């Protein structure tokens, strides 16, 4: 199965990625994925599946971090990314909205948003205020004191100011009310349609992510266990049951789980 827009070579192409923490803990083992231009791709999976690690590997590690890409390739716009520093990768247009510490908490909303606003980028900043009017009302507030939803909006706004060609969004629903998650997902979808900005969205809230994306990957234990167009994934029996809150009337049994594990192996 290949992404629907595979005719031209994809914008982001990850091949057999392997990431190891502290020289011993393999968090991602052989993940391959693709994001085409203008496409929203979802990556779902339970806690510890390796979603954050995958996004962090794409967006680059600092030399001080004890983690390494031990195998595989990452290419963006046909150029290799693996091994580059985060500032280099983000300047090339791959910009991450991290799962945690996504803002400079001691700086104000304005200062966060203006972190790297040049004269040329002022238009984008204005657009951010259009997408997230609530930020405009809080420009002089310290970012650390914003509500969870506002923090997420500011983080996305900051990323947009970096002029991304591909936005990586890590678990935007974390700690947010479902309705706020919905709202922000909707705005991301709008941004995608209006600017044609490609996105790779990582979520535990599978329903929310699969709704806005066109293609999806399911990660487990550092491996891709399912992939396919979102419409197809949403109809998949196992995904329905284990990620979308279970099919009606059926309860999970140990036998189901075992069956599921067997299928998973076959897919992986």
């Amino acid at each position, binding site marked *: 199965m290949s992404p629907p827009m595979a005719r031209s070579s994809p914008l982001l192409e990850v091949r057999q990625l392997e990431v190891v923490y502290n020289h011993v803990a393999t968090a991602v083992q052989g993940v391959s994925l693709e994001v085409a231009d203008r496409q929203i791709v979802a990556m779902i999976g339970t806690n510890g599946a390796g979603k954050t690690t995958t996004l962090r590997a794409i*967006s*680059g590690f*600092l*030399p*001080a*971090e*004890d983690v390494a890409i031990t195998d595989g390739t990452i290419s963006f716009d046909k150029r290799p990314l693996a091994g580059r*520093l*985060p*500032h280099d990768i*983000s*300047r090339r247009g791959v*910009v*991450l909205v*991290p799962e945690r*510490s*996504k*803002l*400079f*908490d*001691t*700086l104000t909303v304005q*200062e*966060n948003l*203006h*972190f*790297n*606003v*040049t004269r040329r980028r002022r238009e984008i900043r204005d657009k951010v205020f259009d997408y997230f009017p609530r930020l405009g009302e809080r420009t002089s507030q310290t970012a650390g004191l914003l509500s969870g939803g506002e923090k997420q909006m500011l983080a996305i706004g*900051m*990323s947009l100011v*970096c002029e991304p060609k591909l936005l990586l969004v890590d678990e935007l629903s974390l700690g947010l009310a479902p309705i706020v998650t919905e709202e922000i997902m909707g705005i991301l979808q709008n941004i995608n349609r209006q600017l044609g900005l490609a996105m790779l969205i990582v979520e535990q809230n599978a329903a929310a992510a699969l709704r806005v994306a066109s293609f999806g990957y399911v990660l487990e234990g550092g491996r891709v266990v399912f992939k396919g167009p979102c419409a197809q994934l949403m109809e998949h029996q196992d995904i329905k049951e284990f990620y979308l809150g279970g099919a009606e009337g059926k309860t999970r049994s140990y036998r189901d789980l075992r069956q599921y594990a067997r299928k998973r192996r076959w897919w992986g």
Partner: protein
Amino acid sequence: MELLVSILVLGATHALLAAGIVIVYKASRIVNFAHGELAIVGAYVFYSAGLITHGQSLLLTVLATAAISALFGVAIYVALMRRLVGQPTFVAAMVTIGLAIILKAAIVVFWQSKSVGINLTRQTLYSFPSGGRLTSVDVITIGCCIVFFAALFAFFRHTRLGRQFRGAAENPLLASQRQVNVNLILALAWATAVFSATLAGVLFGSRSMLSPQSTIIGLSGLTAALVGGLDSLRGAVIGGMLVAAATYLTARLIDPALSEAVPFAILLTVMIWRPWGIYGTPEELNRV
């Protein structure tokens, strides 16, 4: 009045020293134990630059010293500190102690431990009724301090690079993910720190004789930084003034011989009573 001027002048030097320590600490969580040595080496460089220009062009001497000190700061970062990325910060602190020893040796080698003084034009501008004098050096010292801090605050508040500096100090990974080259920020921090150390050293040298022993002023600077809070520039100013006041009052009212020990006494008191300083943030200490 005379007392106030004396404290302000001494405090300005301490505050400048503390500022350099704070800037490096903010950017990298490294406590720089070589700051006093950097200040005195800077002052010796200024002295030598003055000899080379035959005291003809003060401006040239100042510019040359400023450029050399800033470049030396960058060199320290590139040659020593950048390699310590990922190491615990105490390792870096040990490296700065090593640097201090090397710099002190350099004073012996290059300047033969000569006791020298820096002659800025020293004119009496005002004589106090009690006998003290306000000299041009006093005014220059306080003026330099005010200009330096004003420029620094304006830089941090109102420029993009200043914002990026503060952001990188708080969260280097996020700054990097937002297209900022953290290496450049750190190099800039060291350049500013060594520049301000040199400025403090030159001002110090224009009122007292320079010798390898003068490097002890680093401890006053460190104490001032700790009193104010290692991560607070505002604290550097307040801390510098407090340490100066305590030192000066002890010398005046109790015993001049005792005043040397005052910074150490304050240092110990602060470490026990309020280790994060007046303006510092308590959480910061966990990282030390």
